[in-house]
């Protein structure tokens, strides 16, 4: 048996893979939170519940015939859900922005924090009331079942898919914000929304779409996560604190920071599980504390105004 630092290579690579998968989810979720905070200055604590909502929409679509018996509705599988569920969650995000979020743009951060925590409680509470706390199973799509034995580890196809798609979505989002005209509008509106509006750009509409996009990303992540974790009302609750730690480490509002620190911290967490399992739940927060002491703006943070 090959050992690395006294640990079997299978255990090490297995945990690295788990770390990479978790990192992919951290990166996707942190990206949404970073976009929303960076552009709207809203700490979107309801992001975890919106991620849960994405997974539940995928589950609803898969179980349409059981949920609405007698209507003759078809089962809508993973691939369609991967497009449809984020769109539904985007719509919910637009509605939340229109009804609630825009009312706290000009208020202290504490208000958006309280508002989004309250929305989380309502959303998660409603789902818990209907479906209980236990998880609903969601099958891996046929095309991505199975895996490949690499000799030193077993590589499940679905997990590779998650990592690749996550990287592609993260890059596409970064490109949109940093390299396109729409992204330039967003970045400018972050600095001076009143002036950008005076240039003829409909900033309120842009903020609404940006919130919807960030929330849609959470919904997309929820669909990606559904086959790996069970679909349950509390699935986002466990993740949201870590996601905020990732965003703080990357730099509040930094798109690239959220992506890099998401993957990096997922891997660190995975490796900690191998070498010091007891510390694996706290390692991210220890790193956050150190980063806040050494670099208060985060690893790649734009200075928040």
């Amino acid at each position, binding site marked *: 048996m090959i050992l690395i630092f006294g640990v079997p290579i299978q255990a090490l690579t297995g945990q690295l893979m788990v770390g990479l998968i978790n990192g992919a989810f951290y990166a996707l979720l942190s990206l949404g939170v970073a976009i929303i905070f960076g552009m709207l200055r809203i700490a979107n604590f309801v992001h975890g519940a919106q991620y849960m909502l994405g997974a539940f929409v995928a589950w609803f679509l898969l179980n349409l015939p059981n949920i609405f018996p007698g209507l003759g509705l078809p089962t809508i599988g993973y691939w369609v859900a991967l497009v449809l569920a984020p769109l539904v969650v985007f719509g919910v995000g637009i509605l939340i922005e229109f009804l609630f979020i825009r009312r706290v743009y000009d208020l202290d951060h504490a208000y958006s924090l309280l508002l989004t925590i309250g929305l989380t409680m309502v959303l998660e509470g409603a789902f818990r009331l209907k479906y209980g706390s236990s998880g609903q199973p969601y099958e891996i799509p046929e095309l991505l079942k199975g895996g490949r034995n690499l000799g030193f580890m077993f590589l499940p196809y679905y997990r590779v898919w998650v990592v690749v798609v996550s990287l592609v979505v993260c890059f596409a989002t970064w490109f949109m914000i940093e390299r396109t*005209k729409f992204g*330039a*509008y967003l*970045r*400018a509106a*972050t*600095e*001076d929304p*009143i*002036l*950008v*509006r*005076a*240039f*003829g*750009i*409909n*900033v309120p509409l842009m903020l609404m779409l940006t919130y919807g996009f960030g929330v849609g990303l959470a919904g997309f992540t929820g669909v990606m996560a559904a086959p790996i974790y069970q679909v349950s009302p509390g699935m986002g609750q466990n993740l949201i604190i870590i996601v905020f730690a990732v965003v703080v480490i990357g730099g509040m509002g930094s798109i690239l920071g959220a992506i890099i620190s998401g993957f990096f911290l997922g891997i660190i967490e995975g490796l900690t599980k191998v070498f010091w399992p007891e510390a694996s739940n706290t390692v991210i927060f220890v790193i956050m504390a150190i980063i806040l002491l050494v670099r208060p703006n985060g690893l790649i943070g*734009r200075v928040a105004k």
Partner: protein
Amino acid sequence: MHDVFATQTTHAGAGGAAMLEIRNLEAWYGESRALRSICLDVRDGEVVTLLGRNGAGKSTTLKSIMGMMRKRAGSIKLYGEELIGCASNAIARKGIAFCPENRGIFSSLTVAENLTLPPIVRDGGMSEEEIFDLFPNLRERLNTGGTKLSGGEQQMLAIGRILRTGARLILLDEPTEGLAPAIVQQIGRVIRRLRERGLTVILVEQNFRFAETLADRHYVIENGNVVDSMTNAEVPANRDKLAAYLGV
């Protein structure tokens, strides 16, 4: 001192209907009233300056025209169309462009991105080549971060970017503030060029020597009111009065 309303009628009425008519404009910063009753007219193709001491309400007048003040009342008409209920993005789309006092250059955008940020609202705006002819420094610095430019270059960028838009009314808020004399002269040449192109300019300026070389008419603002106005030809006879208004 002129009777303000009579003066406006005389000066603005001489060349036909006003492009911009402002009547009894009031504006507030929170509970604090910044404009009390601004009345002024600007005709097509004119360069008009708003003069006054710091805090008189000059910049607030421009921001109110642009719809950037949260609370405002009265009437602002562009070619007879009421703007007072319009959002600032809608006002910009009607052909008014604003260059703020702090220049408003975005640090997260390159010079090229800053330059092309304001959307083109009408035909007839300057091409990028024409803007580079006016401000050659910008051509060399396109990939530089916007706020890495010198103060003068930032001012060129702030003016250049609104000239692309095709706006027919240009609002310039203290474009020469803190700039070297050579840059001030360059900005003066640009404003003359804008007038030659038939654009209308409202200029807020503390530097009266600069303003009188460019303007057709001047309004004096004090405590949120227009207290006097005169054509540029009337300035020599009113120099002492102006000095008293401006505290120079």
